């Protein structure tokens, strides 16, 4: 199945693209998607996307469509996933 991913803030920099489309096995979870994305990008992306135990970061915000989603969320063909790295004021 086909999933589109949109990156924001530092994660967009680390990914080097604002969005991309990836093919996943049916019924893949959001967590599995993150692991797949890590394989396709460099160390900067890995450092932001995964925590010390190589699990997807819980301080990133994830959305499927316009709804915030948990990492165990099952993805469906055509889903648009947004991953937001934290931002701040200043």
């Amino acid at each position: 199945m086909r999933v589109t991913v949109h990156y924001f803030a530092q994660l967009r920099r680390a990914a080097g693209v604002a969005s991309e489309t990836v093919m996943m096995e049916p019924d893949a979870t959001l967590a599995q998607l993150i692991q797949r994305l890590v394989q396709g990008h460099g160390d900067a992306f890995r450092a932001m996307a995964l925590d010390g135990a190589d699990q997807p970061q819980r301080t990133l915000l994830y959305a499927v469509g316009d709804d915030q989603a948990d990492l165990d969320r099952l993805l469906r063909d055509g889903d648009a996933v947004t991953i937001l790295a934290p931002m701040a004021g200043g």
Partner: protein
Amino acid sequence: MQSPLTPDDRARYEWQLSAAGFGEEGQARLRSSTVLISRIGGVGGTLAYELAAAGVGKLILAHAGNLRVDDLNRQLLMSDAGVDQSRVEQAARRLRAFNPSIHIETVAENVHEHNVDELVWRADAVASCAPLFAERLLMNRAAVRQGKPLVDCAMYEMEIQLLTVIPGQTPCLACLYPQEPPAWRRRFPVFGAVAGTAGCLGAMEIIKVLSGLDAPVAPSAGEARLDEPGLGEALRGRMLIGDLRTLKFRTMQLRRDPKCAVCAKHSK
């Protein structure tokens, strides 16, 4: 009841008094309100400017340190001659000159563990515009505990994020970020116009929340009409995500964390 407006108030705020759902009552509410603004840089400075323009009665500005030359691409309350001088004093001077009818209080320190409760206690709403997560999470915790609305404004490069926390009703900042994000760095690229956009949007959220324009359901219930007093809605449980590179704006529906260490026991 709110005191009536003076003739000076009516003259100064004439352009906004006729806004649907606002009126003299909304203006009087703003005049009797106090807003704490954490950091008056690119985001908070612009937000403070707009709240001063709108006639919020008292602004408490908290920001430590002196102006650096590299602040000047975004910190509009400052001046070139003010480099190496107190940021918060410059901001206060500019705001007082701009609108002498409101009160400006300066706190020459950043919000921290030991001043946060007292500062939030003195305000009716909190504008969180700080670059550090620790500070934003502290303000969020104090605001939720004290039942004060908080607007959190953030930016990165040409992107902005905005979130309004209504304690007991919406997710809070700690629902989204239970701990300080490890990847966050204090210095990041940004344009002043991006910071200012976040500040202006944040100011409008505060104006809505304080003046009664944040009313998801029209007071008379039933059908919502544009001219219905009170119609409007703050970013309750939604996060505004804006990309000024492409001018795409959207909102993301957030969820409360039922185990949130800050707001879980303050639910209604």
